[in-house]
């Protein structure tokens, strides 16, 4: 995966959230398993302002997808326990029944999933699936809904939408299916799009097209976006703000510039350090974060990154709180006990930000 954050100013302007669209507070999702309680999401809070792009970044199993699904009420296993608050336009979404969530899903918040190959029902025509979404929310005549479907397919850049609307999903390429998914999501003009790794399963060139499409929709329609990804290159291109998750917890959050130019958490350093940089000589070997993410069933005491962190010290056995540690940036919060000055020192690896392999 080649990510290419430009060394200059990143695309997308850094706006501070006014927090009026989506408000997630202290969200926890736990699964009762045979091996004990699995804490998939552990006390995560964030806001999304209208027409803002928030990126949620983390490794597999960091809880970012579960967070996204839970917002939509799609965490449905009977053994899931959901706590905390999810407010959308001042309406509390947690605890709502399916029937009540229906008005929000699709109409207010749309979601695009990781794998476009399996996200469309193979037995129905693409157009029909878009029409189905439209007509489930409003009493639109079939013909009108079909027109709308064609219009949406055109809007997401599907060529010859009048004929493509009658294709079956398997007649679409992966990139086109993801576009169709986006078209379906946007058909009802929602104000928030949750894109769960929308480009991960696609070819590199198609990835860029999908990301640019999301960016364009954000700019043209004022669509707010939660972009779930593990690809910091994508984040650098379009995000306004970034939330870094590790082992179910938010370990750092701030504006794009804050995260990329003044990262406070060693895990973020590791993520940034493992990016390939086109503006630097090619390293012999891509740096990586040693070790594996911890078990979510029995997370380490104290800082959950401690077992993998080369800079861990005595205090790390105490769980660090998520707080602003920089006086000049009150919105930039992290979960690391080290002082900002120490961090500036420690994150410097051969002249760039990274996580040292040895302390």
């Amino acid at each position, binding site marked *: 995966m080649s990510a290419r954050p430009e060394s200059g100013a990143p695309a997308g302007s850094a706006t501070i959230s006014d927090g009026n669209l989506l408000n997630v507070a202290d969200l926890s999702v736990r*699964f*009762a*398993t*045979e*091996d004990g309680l*699995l804490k*998939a999401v552990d006390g995560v809070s964030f806001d999304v302002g209208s027409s803002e792009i928030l990126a949620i970044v983390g490794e*597999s*199993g*960091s809880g*970012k*997808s*579960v967070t996204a699904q839970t917002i939509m009420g799609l965490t449905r*296993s*009977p*053994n899931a326990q959901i706590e905390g608050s999810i407010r959308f336009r001042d309406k509390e979404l947690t605890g709502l029944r399916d029937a009540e969530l229906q008005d929000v899903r699709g109409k207010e918040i749309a979601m695009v999933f*990781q*794998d476009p*190959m*399996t996200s469309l029902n193979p037995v129905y025509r693409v157009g029909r699936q878009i029409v189905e979404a439209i007509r489930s929310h409003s009493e639109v005549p079939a013909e009108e809904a079909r027109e709308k479907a064609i219009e949406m397919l055109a809007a997401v*850049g*599907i*060529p010859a939408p009048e004929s493509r609307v009658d294709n079956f999903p398997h*007649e*679409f*390429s*992966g*990139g*086109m299916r993801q576009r169709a998914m986006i078209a379906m999501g946007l058909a009802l003009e929602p104000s928030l799009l949750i894109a*769960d*790794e929308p480009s*991960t*399963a*696609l*070819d590199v060139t*198609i990835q860029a*097209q999908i990301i*640019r*499409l999301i960016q364009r929709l954000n700019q043209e329609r004022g669509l707010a976006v939660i972009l*779930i990804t*593990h690809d910091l290159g994508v984040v650098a291109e379009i995000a306004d703000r970034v939330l870094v998750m590790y082992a179910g917890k938010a370990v750092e959050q701030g504006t794009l510039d804050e995260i990329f130019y003044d990262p406070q958490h060693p895990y973020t350093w590791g993520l940034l350090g493992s990016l390939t940089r086109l503006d630097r000589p090619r390293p012999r070997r891509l740096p990586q974060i040693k070790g*594996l*993410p*911890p*078990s*979510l*069933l029995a997370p380490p005491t104290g800082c959950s990154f401690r077992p993998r962190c080369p800079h861990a010290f005595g205090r790390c056995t105490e769980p660090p709180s998520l707080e602003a540690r920089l006086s000049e940036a009150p919105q930039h919060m992290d979960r690391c006990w080290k002082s900002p000055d120490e961090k500036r020192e420690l994150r410097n690896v051969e002249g760039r930000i990274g996580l040292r392999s040895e302390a």
Partner: protein
Amino acid sequence: MPEPYADAAVEPKTLPVDDFSSDDSTGFEGRSPWYLAWRRLRRNRVALAFLALFFLIVIFVLAAPLWATQVAHTGPDTTHTTEKITVDGKKKDVVSLDGQPIGPVWFGAAGKFFLGADGSLGRDEMVRLMYGGRISLFIGIVSALITTILAVVFGLLAGFYGGKLDSAIGAIMDVIWAFPVLLLGIALGTALSVGNGLQLGPITIPGNSIWIPILIIGFVYTPYMLRPIRGEVLGLREKEFVEAATAQGAGTLRIMFSELLPNLWSTIIVFFTLNIANNMLFESALSFLGAGVRPPTSSWGSMSSQGFTLLTSQPQLVTIPGLMILLTVLSLNVFGDGLRDALDPKSKITLRARGGQIEPEKAST
């Protein structure tokens, strides 16, 4: 932004990047899947209760000689056509003058004719029930063993070698599959028993041997198990550990039996359990129609068949052996179902009971 349609052909493989349930690396290490399965099974009270029922039935049929010699004082084939027994102090015919057998007397005659007599020959139904169960269970288990061995060996060969061998085995299975199972069983059963049995080189199996139904039942159900096994082998063949073994120069046989076979055990065990149930039911149907076990051997199926002529006057001659079949088959089916749930790794995160991929019957086409 036009996009070439041609890229349909080069769609990338997708990886579940943030899929929780696949996140085994974060779980506890060193815990064998068998242990996990056992722990799940142990919690399934219903499955264990039915397993206990199955063992009770096995003990019941194993106790046949004990009952015959110590309680009933007669054998399964001993006739008592003209005898009288004392039931609660009154003398009664075992078989009445018009050929009606005596009904169940329970402990009225100290355990003799507990379930009455079996028909005009006046044999002790209870003794016959216990001995007949041995035959039913024996045929069920041995034929399931045959089905399993055939399906595993040919499934491994077909799945591992692929190509022409796979096509040939597949074609044969398709042809067997085309027959309604019962009709194929009947055709083979009658053809083999009407003549003088089966002659395979030096081995002659007489027409009334129980090996004829055993071989037939073992054979006709092979395709139903072979297909899923083959499918699994096809999947496993692509896995890294098989490639690794090949790279280390392991022989074909070694790969098949020490790399692939261990991964098939859970499927095999579930199928074996359900096959016993299925095969016993099939045996009872064949024997009921007269195309299964032949006199003097009798099974629960042939006992029911024989008793059917007396359904109006002595319905227990059909309903009791039939009930034994039902209980045995049900106990194996419920236990097998629980076993499948326990061995299905998908149930690791989601606690809800769910059916796995394995469907022993015609499900996987």
